[in-house]
């Protein structure tokens, strides 16, 4: 009977093209509004590295003032000091670890046709690449020995390699930055990062890093970070005083392969801070945190309140569209009371009538869903054009495509429920006499 009801549904929709178009358009617009905003919200908040997000942990140490917490709710600072980052790196207690900070350097290309430009990159350790797994187009990451040797090496991002070397394999070539030469050891390929989750303190949806440089090398060359920097007391004068200060400006990630290792590392952090307390640092009570990737994203509100409100409004619009569809379906089914009465007389049970008209509603939903998908695609193009920072998250994936069609179908079935119920209440005897 499903095929029969489907055929009747299609026939009925073809018979009233204007009414059908209004219903389909109503659902499609509602779906597009809700799914465009939901897609952005979903991709913003989705796990960027699901296969190991529970192993990667962001380190937070509360070195803040005794008088005032970093956050009013008592959460520790979002970043760590140079002094603590290097101490944790030297201790090497995690399975993998990488301190890092954001840095900007001028680039002087060898190719005279390319003008010098300012580039934004990341200073970190060799483990960064094993932890966050960027795909390499050419070469590989530098190694621990090169970290220790303060080597003048560099890993280029895809865009910078494109700019300097036309996208060719540049491994072994030299790049001049701020008057120093660095040898390219690797080139990152197409790294599809929805958010730059490893540095949420400096803009989760900023452009991908253009280069990566060993931490030890950058510190040697006294390269300041260009990310956020917070201090609760004076950082003193000069580079060395700044490095020894309690200013927080670096991010610290560790990879811990098991819950036991997590517990061990937490214990190690507590011991470390207690030792530092003896040296007169860390005046606040112990407040160390190790949050995994998803916890850290939630803590940093990667999905902003604005986006949540927009998504809410999108769904409110869908609700309005559905109310409109309910009205149109009601009008359509009411007009068919005579046919319903006849079918009942010829042997259709209420269940048959219910199935027939729910399937007709479903056909409206699927058609609206297909059109809604196209409009959602256009909506996301508009989001990418209007909000360039969201370009990595304003994309449809298969989950969202399936969800769009599913939502349209469920919406139409919900909209069809009341009109169909009314259709089932048609008294056949009364209708047959008035035909």
């Amino acid at each position: 009977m499903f095929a029969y009801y489907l055929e009747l549904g299609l026939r009925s929709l073809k018979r009233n093209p204007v009414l059908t178009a209004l219903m389909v358009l109503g659902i499609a617009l509602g779906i597009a509004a809700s799914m465009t905003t939901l897609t952005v919200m979903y991709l913003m908040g989705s796990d960027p590295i699901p296969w190991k997000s529970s192993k990667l942990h962001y380190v937070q140490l509360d070195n803040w003032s005794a008088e005032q917490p970093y956050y009013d709710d008592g959460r520790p600072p979002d970043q760590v000091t140079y002094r603590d980052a290097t101490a944790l790196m030297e201790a090497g207690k995690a399975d993998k670890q990488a301190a890092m900070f954001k840095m900007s350097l001028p680039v002087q290309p060898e190719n005279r046709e390319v003008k010098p430009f300012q580039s934004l990159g990341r200073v970190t350790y060799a483990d960064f690449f094993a932890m966050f797994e960027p795909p390499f187009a050419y070469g590989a990451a530098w190694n621990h020995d090169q970290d220790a040797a303060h080597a003048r090496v560099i890993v280029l991002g895809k865009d910078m390699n494109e700019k300097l070397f036309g996208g060719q394999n540049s491994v072994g070539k030299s790049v001049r930055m701020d008057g120093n030469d660095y040898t390219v050891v690797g080139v990152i390929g197409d790294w599809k990062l929805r958010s730059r989750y490893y540095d949420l303190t400096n803009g989760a949806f900023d452009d991908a890093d253009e280069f990566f440089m060993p931490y030890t090398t950058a510190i040697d060359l006294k390269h300041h970070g260009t990310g956020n920097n917070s201090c609760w007391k004076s950082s003193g004068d000069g580079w060395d005083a700044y490095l020894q200060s309690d200013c927080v400006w670096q991010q610290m990630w560790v990879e811990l392969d098991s819950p036991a290792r997590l517990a061990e590392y937490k214990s190690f952090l507590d011991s470390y801070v207690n030792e530092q307390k003896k040296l007169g640092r860390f005046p606040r009570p112990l407040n160390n945190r190790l949050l995994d990737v998803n916890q850290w994203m939630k803590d940093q509100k990667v999905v902003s309140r604005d986006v949540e409100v927009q998504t809410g409004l999108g769904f409110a619009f869908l609700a309005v569209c559905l109310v409109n569809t309910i009205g149109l379906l009601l009008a359509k089914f009411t007009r068919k009371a005579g046919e319903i009465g006849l079918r009942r007389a010829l042997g259709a049970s209420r269940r048959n009538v219910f199935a027939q008209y729910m399937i007709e509603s479903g056909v409206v939903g699927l058609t609206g869903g297909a059109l809604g998908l196209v409009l959602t695609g256009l909506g996301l193009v508009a989001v990418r054009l209007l909000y360039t920072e969201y370009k990595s998250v304003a994309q449809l994936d298969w989950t969202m495509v399936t969800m769009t069609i599913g939502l349209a179908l469920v919406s139409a079935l919900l909209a069809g429920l009341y009109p169909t119920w009314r259709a089932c209440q048609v008294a056949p005897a009364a209708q047959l006499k008035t035909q």
Partner: protein
Amino acid sequence: MLQMKHLSKVYRTHMVETHALRDFSIHVRDGEFVAVTGPSGSGKTTFLNIAGLLEEFSGGEYWLDGVDVRGMDDNARSKLRNEKIGFIFQSFNLIPDLNIFDNVDVPLRYRGYAGAERKRRIDEALTRVGLASRMKHYPSELSGGQQQRVAIARALAGSPRLLMADEPTGNLDSLMARGVMELLEDINRQGTTIIMVTHDPELAARAQRNVHVIDGQVTDFDEEPKLRVPTRDGNPAAATA
């Protein structure tokens, strides 16, 4: 075939209680052709709707082909209606979007027959009413008489035991009406029981037995059929009301 005992039907609103049928008893034997007559508002259509399981009754008993229909749920009533009863209406009640073939197909779909069986039955029914060549036509392309023949084919396709006709010639001119009546008589001769509601004394006279209804009650009836016709079980039909 059909037996009602002391049946009543009351329509209730906030203000009024209307007794459409009261103490209504009738017994229609297998193979009969019964005409139900009476003035407008007398309750003859209410009787037909209850007999056709399109409406529920308020009190009394109703047996259809040996089945007690009291307290049946909607599914069971729909199934019984589909299997046992064919309807013919005054205004034909064909679905304008469907061609003739698909119109006749409607009750067969609810019976759950396979495609080949449905096609065989539709061919047979349309051939019987002389419209086999018009299968692909739409109702609007046929005359009133032809549309009523399609409705008869639709009623016959499921091989019902009982045919219920509500003023079947009311919307037809006399020539077409005569053709439809001859067809109904032919169907009855083949053994199908027919109950026909009509205002027309001339049509009623052609039925084997007349039942007159006034104010929801049977007031006058023929004790015996005018003609004795062989029934499916081979016994002559007799009727009391």
